[in-house]
């Protein structure tokens, strides 16, 4: 299901850069077929800046998402936020603040373009709803399709933006993860779901800060008491240090607080009569909790509490039957007490009685007798015991006999514990890029190993390469690894989609972090680029491209089936070879112009169909990919040589190659044409020169040149009784 939105011209910011955009299209029109010009053009695009993304829904679009009786209010003029209102008794109430994540937190996704989510945040910070407006995540565009993503964002409804929400494993919630702070992830889409989670949370916090008065601190904060830090302290010690606090309300203090209400004098006896006498203690710190509760009881409590949560004890040592006693007979076990509240930074923190077994309480000696409660504060509440917090007691008095009116006064006591009792774990600034690197370490290791084997084999040409049959076996083995492991298993088929992402990042988002979430691909990119500089594009195209390997395997059946290659006339061949540069330019220009066409153009690559999705895809895509494989039977690797935009980009960048490393002999070209004829890629010129941008480094010609039985100049020399040494010859 796609969400469509109408573009509201009135709300679009004027684009000061539209002049430059025209400029870019003029460049496009002028682009000819000369390669250096392509390169300049590519750089020009990379350094071009275009207006950043903006939300696409206008009033009409929002009204579709928030139909009557909800009312879409006038857009805010300080933040790109639409109030969604509900009419009630002639007045309006705020139902939600609606906004598009891309306006507030444009975090580039896996395709390089930020996803756009419509978020509705209730005034209390609860997500009312999250919907997908647009997204360019490759896995959700094709792959899995958008449905899992739509189901994914539905999980946010009812969660609170006051808590850091993390993406768990699939079915994490069913598996016991905290349902208030976890959403179920989607397998194969870990990186994309993290980006979407981050877009939702970051935009919601911006709105919360601007409109709801929270979001500045404490979201996702994890502060825990150090469990090993223990010091034997008596209650007087603890009181002296302020680690246990005492709140005493006397008749006089109450009278002052209720002054002017008519209910100030409710106490018989002298003004210093104690109404309530509360001891307040944060228990998680062993130096407090263990000393107050005793070791066994403290350990039992900590087990029940669970890591990261907090326990606050309140003991009422005042007269038990006094109406002011907050832990008197009207206290409800297991409930959030109505007369005691924990707050921090002006915000109430939910603290619920733990209903701990009262009998045989076994409290440590020194605590006065009295009713007590242990209040549990969930970690998700963002409570920070290392910062000052307040326990507030409320005393309620009734005025009037018949239509009595309740008058409440509050009595706070603040606790400030030293920070060194605690470990503070800062909330995640964003999705952690280190996770995928750790999780995929085994795959990275195997890929590293494969590269470590490949490099010396290619570099030492008198070794394995010179041994025709064994080298052929090695090559088949390596390509099997490339297709089966790198491609199908590790999902590390490099693709033009990454370049599209780079261009979009350069043009609009200026954020390349998305690359970090796919470690195997990034490692292969790094290797491919390094090899490009030294040896040329062929190292990747001939050895590490899974689709290339697949074509090579398919081509193996050509001979047994007696399928013969079609000879492409040299003139046509020259033209077709240029076609891939045109394809590349089209895709990159579309990406630079911010056009979604770049995603469609990228489908000229069959990689997603054949490798990423194992051919499980709608039939036109499968037919196209299969067609290319069939074409490969008669025009060997025709896709690679004529169409592949990734190969084109590597060939362009490979112009910086340092080494002319494929060995040649003086006789190559004149008079010997053997290698030229045998080269299945047409990468050897009649002059004998290697055309490196077209060379796939299959090493066939290297094997020949080192084989005294095949290399014609060597055969002739042998006949004449001389030796002939091959040596690299300049390519140009």
């Amino acid at each position, binding site marked *: 299901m796609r969400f469509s939105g109408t573009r509201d011209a009135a709300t679009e910011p004027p684009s000061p850069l539209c002049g430059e955009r025209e400029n870019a299209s003029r460049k496009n029109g002028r682009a000819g077929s000369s390669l250096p010009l392509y390169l300049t053009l590519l750089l020009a695009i990379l350094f071009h800046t275009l207006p950043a993304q903006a939300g696409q829904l206008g009033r009409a679009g929002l009204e579709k998402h928030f139909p009557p009786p909800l009312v879409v*209010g*006038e857009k805010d003029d300080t933040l790109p936020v639409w*109030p969604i209102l509900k009419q009630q*008794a*002639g007045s309006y109430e*705020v139902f939600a603040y609606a906004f598009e994540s891309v306006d507030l937190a444009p975090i580039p996704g896996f395709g390089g373009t930020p996803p756009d989510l419509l978020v509705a945040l209730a005034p209390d910070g609860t997500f009312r709803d999250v919907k997908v407006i647009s997204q360019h995540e490759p896995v959700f565009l094709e792959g899995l399709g958008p449905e899992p993503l739509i189901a994914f964002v539905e999980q946010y409804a009812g969660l609170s933006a006051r808590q850091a929400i993390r993406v768990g494993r699939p079915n994490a919630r069913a598996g016991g993860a905290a349902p208030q702070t976890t959403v179920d992830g989607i397998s194969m889409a870990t990186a994309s779901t993290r980006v979407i989670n981050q877009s939702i949370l970051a935009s919601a916090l911006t709105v919360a800060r601007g409109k709801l008065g929270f979001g500045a601190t404490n979201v996702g904060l994890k502060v825990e008491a150090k469990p090993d830090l223990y010091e034997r302290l008596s209650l007087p010690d603890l009181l002296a240090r302020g680690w246990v606090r005492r709140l005493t309300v006397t008749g006089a203090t109450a009278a002052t607080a209720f*002054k002017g209400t008519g209910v100030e004098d409710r106490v018989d006896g002298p003004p210093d009569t104690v109404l309530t006498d509360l001891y307040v203690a944060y228990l998680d710190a062993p130096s407090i909790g263990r000393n107050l509760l005793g070791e066994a009881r403290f350990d039992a409590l900590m087990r029940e509490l669970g890591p990261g949560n907090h326990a606050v004890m309140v003991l009422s040592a005042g007269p038990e039957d006094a109406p002011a006693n907050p832990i008197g007979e009207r206290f409800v076990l297991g409930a959030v007490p109505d007369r005691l509240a924990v707050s921090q930074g002006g915000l109430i923190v939910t603290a619920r009685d733990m209903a701990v077994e009262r009998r045989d309480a076994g409290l440590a000696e020194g605590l006065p007798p009295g009713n007590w409660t242990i209040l549990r504060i969930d970690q998700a509440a963002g409570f920070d015991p290392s910062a000052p917090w307040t326990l507030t007691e*409320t005393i309620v008095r009734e005025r009037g006999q018949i239509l009595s009116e309740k008058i409440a*006064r509050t009595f706070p006591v603040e606790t400030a514990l030293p920070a060194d009792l605690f470990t503070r774990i800062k909330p995640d600034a964003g999705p952690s890029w280190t996770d995928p690197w750790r999780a995929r370490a085994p795959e990275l290791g195997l890929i590293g190993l494969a590269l470590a084997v490949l490099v010396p084999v290619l570099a030492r040409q008198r070794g394995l390469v010179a041994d025709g049959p064994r080298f052929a076996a090695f090559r088949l083995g390596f390509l099997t690894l490339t297709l089966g492991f790198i491609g199908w298993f590790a999902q590390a088929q490099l693709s033009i989609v990454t370049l599209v992402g780079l261009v979009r990042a350069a043009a609009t988002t200026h954020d390349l972090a998305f690359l970090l979430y796919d470690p195997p691909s990034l490692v292969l990119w790094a290797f491919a680029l390094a090899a490009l500089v030294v040896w040329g594009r062929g190292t990747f195209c001939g050895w590490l491209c899974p689709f290339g390997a697949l074509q090579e395997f398919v081509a193996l059946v050509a001979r047994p089936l007696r399928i013969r290659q079609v000879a492409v006339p040299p003139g046509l061949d020259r033209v077709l070879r240029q076609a891939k540069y045109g394809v590349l330019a089209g895709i990159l220009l579309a990406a630079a112009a911010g056009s979604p066409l770049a995603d469609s153009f990228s489908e000229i690559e069959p990689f997603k169909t054949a490798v990423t999705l194992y051919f499980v895809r709608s039939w036109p895509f499968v037919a196209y990919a299969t067609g290319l494989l069939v074409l490969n039977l008669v025009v060997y690797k025709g896709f690679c040589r004529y169409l592949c935009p990734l190969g084109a980009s590597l060939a362009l960048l490979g112009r910086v190659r340092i080494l002319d490393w494929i060995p040649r002999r003086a006789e190559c070209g004149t008079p010997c044409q053997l290698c030229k004829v045998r080269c299945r890629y047409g990468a050897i010129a009649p002059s004998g020169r290697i055309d490196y941008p077209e060379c796939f480094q299959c090493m066939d010609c290297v094997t020949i040149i080192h084989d005294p039985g095949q290399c014609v100049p060597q055969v002739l020399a042998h006949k004449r009784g001389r030796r002939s040494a091959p040596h690299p010859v300049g390519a140009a």
Partner: protein
Amino acid sequence: MSGGGHPRPARRRILVGAAGLAAAAGLGGLAAFRAAAASAGLTLRTRAGLAFGTTVALTAAGGDAARLEAALTDGFAAMRAVEVAASLFRPDSALSRLNRDGALDAPDPHLVVLLRFALALAAETGGAFDPTVQPLWPVWAAAAARGARPAAGVLHAVLGRIGWRRVRLEPDRITLEPGTALTLNAVIQGYAADRVMAAFRGHGIEDAFVDTGEFGASGAHPDGSPWRLGLADPRDPATLAAVIAPFTGFAATSGDYNMRFSDDRADHHIFDPATGYSPGALSSVTVTAPTGLLADGLSTACMVLGRERGARLVAGHAGAAVRFTDKA
């Protein structure tokens, strides 16, 4: 005198239920109205939003839907302009800057109009209405956060910084004496209603109902019935205590329930500039007047002045009328 400096912690309660179609419409009534309005060739457009820290709603009626939409857009722009001039909810408004710096050159014209009116009303009421009560707000808010009232000594010290004569309004400069700060929250919503109505008139809109927190109406409902303004019971906002019908002109209500510091509503956002405490006698005051600015200012002044002196004040202004609700 309304303080209410900073973003109010509590959302504004319904003080007046707007009637006319906007409120009364059950579904049946709406259908009936649509039939009637369609036969008359009239359309009604309402646009709601947030301004002055509360919800607002503008309703305009006429024959041309596009013109109505343009008028509503301009109406909101008018409110935004008033906010930019004098809203304390915006740290960058001209008034916020004036409070921060103690002086402001080339002040925003809206700010000048509002301040000139406020100072004149302060003079007329002998300081019962005073725009300089703003320093009381943080003192009360801080005390309320502790669940207490400010200490008498603290209030006394603050009262020394209050007084409308501590403001100098010149055509091109406003100057405050040290420690003085202004609030125009007592008059800003009424003035905004005036500005919205002016914007509507610029579009040739004759029938309109405006809720900027205070109310304004002109003409009639397109179904031919007059606009009706319901006054909510201050102690039970869901019930209507009275209905003004027909309602044209402007109405403003000040009450003790809107933003209060104590549950018994003894302490709320309206301060008596003489004592620093909230005036005790009235629960709410509603004033109707030819301009929103006047209605809004008079209603706040009446809260402080009480029933008798308030009635005398209103009687001195042509076209103005007042209703009082005593504290229960």
